[in-house]
């Protein structure tokens, strides 16, 4: 299929009229769903390659949020009136959409949170606080985002427990042969990133979960970078917890999901106290509500949940394997082109990768790369990507990172490659 793509397509080809191979996935059509691409940045068409940081929103998501505020809005779970019931229905429908998207068994296993960061903190402060004691261990990996390091560090420090780290090799693959031996009878939880935001590494989490379970240890999966690239089925993975962020899968900011197995969630103490998370309150005693409400204190991000549901429906409206294949082609095309530039060092060459390409240029700091690319209308990320231990592993302060979505085109990649050459020219 990939042979039908003309990899030498001229950069000056007119974008919208670009011919695409019939029957193949067509990013140009998808782009029409995203109003952001109608504008020009610094007089140039937007080449947005910062999708691992956040993705753009299709019109259907913007419309769903706007319709909710304009026509359907009210608080939920509290009113007897028409609008409140309607808003409650939409919010609970959104929960069902997420359940179905992740293939969770029960709706109440889906808890709406602000994002992956909050999901991890929630579990650290509830499950962690309850189960981690002095001398216990939490096991994470060397390629975690700070969001999957710091919350565990905090609870470990408080409890006198220790944080252990599965090492990685020079490609950015975890040293799996060491994983099982690192699980001890003091390990209370394994928490792993599914797809690394800094390196693109796809961890073999299903096998790792099975290994941990053989030792009776539950597993938390940080899915912030996975759900938008690969099909995820939490029952098939058999993870105990799973977290995702709406804004990275074409949904709004400020909304995310914590999935937890029902029995675990039911046993956990609440995270925050307040309205909605209670059944009854007296000054002496409070009876907590059932899951998921026990974990959703206060008025939640109702519009966010509705927007997220619209995003997931939009995403699922496509053939996910075709999207993935297209992203794979983009990654391949970019990787091959960058490999051919002598000054480029690719950071993260794992066996299985999502469409994230981190690199450094000999003698040019990533920050300078980012500035020059920006002048070409190309948005990439330059920095440590909230993964400083990963940078330390590779002995670098930062990388430049291009991360692709299905709405990116081969021309976007060509523009990136062209602009990298002009960075080298400036610094020659």
């Amino acid at each position, binding site marked *: 299929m990939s042979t039908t793509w003309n990899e030498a397509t001229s950069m000056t080809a007119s974008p919208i009229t670009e011919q695409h191979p019939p029957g193949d996935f067509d990013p140009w059509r998808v782009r029409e769903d995203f109003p952001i691409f109608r504008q020009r940045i610094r007089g140039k068409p937007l080449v947005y390659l910062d999708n691992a940081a956040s993705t753009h929103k299709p019109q259907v998501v913007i419309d769903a949020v706007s319709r909710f505020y304009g026509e359907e809005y009210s608080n939920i779970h509290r009113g007897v009136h028409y609008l409140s019931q309607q808003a409650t229905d939409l919010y609970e429908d959104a929960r069902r959409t997420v359940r179905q998207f992740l293939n969770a068994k029960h709706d109440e296993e889906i808890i709406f949170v602000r994002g992956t960061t909050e999901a991890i903190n929630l579990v650290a402060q509830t499950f962690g606080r309850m189960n981690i004691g002095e001398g216990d261990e939490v096991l994470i990996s060397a390629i975690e985002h700070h969001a999957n390091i710091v919350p565990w560090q905090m609870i470990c420090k408080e409890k006198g427990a220790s944080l252990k780290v599965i090492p990685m090799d020079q490609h950015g693959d975890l040293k799996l042969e060491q994983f099982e031996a690192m699980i001890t009878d003091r390990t209370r939880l394994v928490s792993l990133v599914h797809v690394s935001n800094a390196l693109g590494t796809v961890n073999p989490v299903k096998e790792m979960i099975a290994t941990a379970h053989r030792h009776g240890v539950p597993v938390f999966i940080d899915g912030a970078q996975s759900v938008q690239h690969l099909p995820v089925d939490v029952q098939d993975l058999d993870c105990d917890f799973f977290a995702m962020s709406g804004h990275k899968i074409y949904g709004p900011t400020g909304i995310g999901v914590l999935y937890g197995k029902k029995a675990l969630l039911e046993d956990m103490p609440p995270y925050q106290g307040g309205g909605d998370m209670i059944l009854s309150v007296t000054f002496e005693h409070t009876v907590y509500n059932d899951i998921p409400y026990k974990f959703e204190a206060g008025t939640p991000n109702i519009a966010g949940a509705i927007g997220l549901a619209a995003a997931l429906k939009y995403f699922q409206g496509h053939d996910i394997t075709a999207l993935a294949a297209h992203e794979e082609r983009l990654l391949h095309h970019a990787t091959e082109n960058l490999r051919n530039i002598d000054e480029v060092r690719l950071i993260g060459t794992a066996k299985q990768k999502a469409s994230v390409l981190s690199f450094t240029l000999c003698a040019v700091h990533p920050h300078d790369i980012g500035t020059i690319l920006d002048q070409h209308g190309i948005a990439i990320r330059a920095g*440590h990507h909230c993964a400083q231990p990963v940078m330390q592993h590779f002995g670098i302060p930062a990388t430049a990172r291009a991360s692709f979505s299905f709405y990116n085109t081969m021309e976007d990649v060509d523009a990136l490659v062209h602009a990298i050459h002009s960075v080298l020219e*400036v610094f020659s």
Partner: protein
Amino acid sequence: MDELRDLYQEIILDHNKNPQNFHKLVDADFTLEGFNPLCGDHYTFYLKLDGETIEDIGFEGSGCAISKASASLMSSILKGKRKEEAEHLFSLFTDIVTGKIDPAEHIEELGKLAAFAGVADFPVRVKCATLPWHTMHGALQGKQDNITTE
């Protein structure tokens, strides 16, 4: 792309490639580290004073072209300057790169530092240019804690 040329002036690229005073001072009176957490710029500055005069200045570390060239130019310009002159240049430099004042009116005072005027068009890069100056300023004030730009 003219802005790019204004930002990455020849003199900035030269100092990035061949930074001056890029070494440790073993007998420094003040040593202070400066960080830019956002992009990982990280330098250590060494100052040696003779009374009120900066006798020698050196730095080590790594970072982007703007921060390294800024550190290099700062170090060569401040050598032999009195503390109060250094502090004056610090505030002048900050005002130039944040676009608060017109460099054309201070050409003489600025000398080679005028090369950084283009930074004003790149707000996210201002911290890169000012990091060395903030650190130097902190050192002169006798600060012990690392300087960060956040």
